[in-house]
Structure formats: structure tokens, C-alpha cells
């Protein structure tokens, strides 16, 4: 009896060891740099938004490249609530199935997604409240909630982002905003984890003029990768593993009013 138990234990540990070799080892702590240019035109209760993201630097694609373009509109239902509908065209996005099993190297490689265009449709609801009881009274708490549907692979995800912003006012107008945000993505029809991606980040927005802002933000991003189809085809078992990276973003925001 003891012999049988020992054999089972040995077999289990051997199998575990074999699977451990086939969990993709994502590089950790790498730095990515983004650029962002945004126009938010205000006309009464409506905001019209256009946004362009570029990748300034990433270890995978050191040269600058197009990342996404977003257009959409927000409507201010009541002073404390805005709802919006947006559409995004993105290139170079990575999903779980872009992790390819590379049998010769016994490792993973990323699928080349740089030329792959994906459409994303988004619905947004963002309640916000001014926290006048805090010092200066110029604090706003916003809870951004967004549903995202990727038309390329059918993935549906929900994003929520609590955000606290302090406004430094000069001459009654914002001069500098400092925000702390925590963005969390929940996969609704894919993956094997509850949270797909989350990143706390700090943002500073300097209002160079009444309509032009310069933004700098830094995020610590955690992405949870789940077993890819390629992994399953290679019979390399399953995995759920995290990848962490730093993302620094430099942006320009133009806010004309009509």
C-alpha cells in the first residue's frame, strides 16, 4: 500500500514539474511608453471626443507606432452623471490566444498583431460627486463604468474605475489636476480569471491654457493571461499567470467649447 502511494505521489510531482515548464514566463516590470492626443469639444450637455493613442516605446515594439483611435460622445444626463457611446479602432492589441506555443524552443512567442485591426464598441456611465467637505473643496470622485465589446474576437468585458481628482484652481479655473485612479477590467465571456487587467495610476494634467492641457501619467499594470488555444493544441496544459509592467503616458488634451 505504501509503495502504491509513493508511486502516485512521484507521478503527480513529475506531472506537475512537466506542466510547470509550460507556463509562459512573461517578462516582468518592463516599461512601456504611450502618447495620447485628445480633443473633447463641449457643446452644452454634449461632449464630442476624439482620441489618438500611440506607442512611444515598448520592449516588443521599440519604434513608435499607432495604437488606437477612439471617437464618441458623452451626454450629461444630470450634473452628477454622464453617459457615453464610443468606438475604437486598435492595432497591436494582445489577447490570450496571441500566446503561441513554440515547441522547438519549448517556450512561448507572441503572435504578430501589429497589423491586425480590431474594432471595439463601448458604452459608458460615469457618476461623479464633488467632495466639498475635503480641504479646498475642489475634489471630485468619479466612478467610470464601461462595457467593451471587441468586434474582432467577440470578447465582452466590463471596466470600472474609481477615480479621485484634486483640482488646483487659479483665477477660478483649473490650473492643475492630480488624479489617482484604479482601472479594473472584468472578462465577461473569456479567460479563466475574474479580473483580466488592472492598474492603479497617477495622472497630472497641467492646464497650459483654458483649452489646452498637458498630461503625464504613470501606471503599474497587471495583466492576467489565461490558457491560449495554441497551448491547448500543443497539449501543454493550462495556466493562469500574471504579467506586470509600468506604463508611462504623455498626453495633450484640447477642450474647445461651443
Amino acid at each position, binding site marked *: 500500500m505504501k509503495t502504491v502511494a509513493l508511486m502516485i505521489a512521484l507521478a503527480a510531482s513529475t506531472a506537475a514539474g512537466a506542466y510547470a515548464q509550460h507556463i509562459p514566463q512573461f517578462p516582468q516590470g518592463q516599461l512601456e511608453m504611450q502618447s495620447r492626443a485628445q480633443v473633447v469639444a463641449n457643446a452644452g450637455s454634449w461632449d464630442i471626443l476624439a482620441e489618438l493613442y500611440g506607442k512611444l516605446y515598448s520592449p516588443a515594439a521599440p519604434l513608435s507606432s499607432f495604437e488606437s483611435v477612439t471617437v464618441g460622445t458623452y451626454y450629461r444626463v444630470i*450634473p452628477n452623471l454622464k453617459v457615453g457611446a464610443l468606438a475604437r479602432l486598435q492595432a497591436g492589441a494582445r489577447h490570450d490566444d496571441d500566446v503561441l506555443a513554440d515547441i522547438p524552443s519549448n517556450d512561448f512567442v507572441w503572435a504578430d498583431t501589429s497589423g491586425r485591426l480590431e474594432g471595439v464598441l463601448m458604452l459608458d456611465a460615469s457618476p461623479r460627486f464633488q467632495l466639498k467637505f475635503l480641504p479646498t473643496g475642489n475634489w471630485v470622485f468619479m466612478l467610470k463604468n464601461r462595457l467593451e465589446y471587441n468586434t474582432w474576437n467577440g470578447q465582452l468585458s466590463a471596466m470600472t474605475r474609481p477615480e479621485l481628482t484634486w483640482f488646483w484652481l487659479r483665477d477660478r479655473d483649473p490650473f492643475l489636476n492630480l488624479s489617482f485612479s484604479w482601472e479594473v477590467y472584468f472578462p465577461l465571456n473569456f479567460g479563466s480569471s475574474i479580473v483580466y487587467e488592472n492598474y492603479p495610476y497617477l495622472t497630472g494634467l497641467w492646464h497650459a491654457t483654458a483649452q489646452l492641457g498637458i498630461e503625464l501619467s504613470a501606471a503599474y499594470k497587471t495583466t492576467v493571461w489565461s490558457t491560449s488555444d495554441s497551448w491547448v493544441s500543443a497539449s501543454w496544459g493550462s495556466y493562469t499567470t500574471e504579467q506586470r509592467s509600468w506604463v508611462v503616458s504623455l498626453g495633450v488634451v484640447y477642450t474647445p467649447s461651443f
Partner: protein
Amino acid sequence: MKRTNHPAAVLVLLAALSFPCGLSAASGTVVYVEGDVSLKSGGQTRDASIGDAVAPGDTVVTGAKSLAVIDLTNHTTVKLKERTLLAIDSIGDAAAVTLTAGGVFTSIAGKLTGRFSVQTPNAVCGVRGTQFFVAYGRTIDTEPDVWMCVNEGTVEVAIPQTGQTVEVPKGLGVNILGAGRITAPRAYPWTRKLNWNIDPRSGTVDDHTNLDQAYSDLLDQDYD
């Protein structure tokens, strides 16, 4: 912001433009009223009516959803927004009014020989303009902001206590912060909604601009 309160100081909007006829008159005239408008004169208060004479020492008061247009002669007309209190200090070549609440549009048709001033407590401004708007804003510090914007001509705003002087061209406006400092002139989107018409025969003279629009709405700041 630390500011000093100088009750004797005044906000003066001076329009010093040449006027070919050099008219002078002892009284102005109420040319339009809407809603609840009263005229305080000689210790008595009565409802104002079109055609009433307005003399130095009188005070015109508008209630909620009300307005009045007063011809101060010398081609100078003022339009009082709702909830405004305007004292008539002098009329004629050196016309002067004092605004202690609400807002007032001023229109100078043609050119003046003398001066025209709109005063508020705490600051002094000099104006060369034909159409400008002065109104009280929020009280964020200890005293209310005073907004001034120019539709035609140029306005020179100055605070004697500090020596600060700012020239405000057409299309721009300033905020006299708690009457203590003048902001740099800039185009304010909210001023596009002002109704500059001062002549009832040319259309509505109502102005429903809410000065709250002059202040940044922190709940309307979105950047993604």
C-alpha cells in the same frame, strides 16, 4: 486670498469718447420695463413705468425675472438684469451709476463728450467702450467677484489700491477677483450667450445668462 476691504474704493467704468453734440440733461428716462421694477426717489418707492424720469439720487431695482432699460442721455443706455440694484449718481456729460447687486449692460451709441462710469464697491476701472457688461459673480472669498466683458470698443480696468491696470479689448472679459485683482483678459464662452440688445424695438432685451456659467464646473471635467 488676503484682501483688504476699502468701502470708499469704487469700480468705475469710464467711457471717454468724443461726442459731437455735447448734450447734457438733468434726467434720464425709463424706456422699457419688464416684470417687477421699482424706482426709489426722494425717499419714496414706486413702480417704474415706461416714460418715468430718472434723476440723480434715484435708485432702480429689478426683481426676479425682471429687467429695465434706462436712457441716461448723452447716447448712454443701461439695461439692468434681474435682481439688480443700480443707483443713478449723475446724468449728462459726466453720467455715473453705482451697481451694488446683479448685472448691467451698458451701450454707448455714438460718442460721448464727457465721461460715463459704472461703480461698484472695492475697485476702480476705467473704460473706453461702447458696449460692455458688468455683473456680480459668486462670493468665494469675502467679497463677490465682479465680471466685466466687452462687446464693442475697449475697456480699461484699474484698481487704484494696487495700481493694477488691464485693458480689455472687444470680445474679451475679466474677472475682478473679490474686487482684489483683475485676471488676464480672455474670451469666455459664457459671454456668447449674453443678449446685448438694449433696444426693445429691435427685438427681445431679455437676458437669462446665469453667472454660474462663468465658473468652472468641476463635475464637467472629462479627459477620456
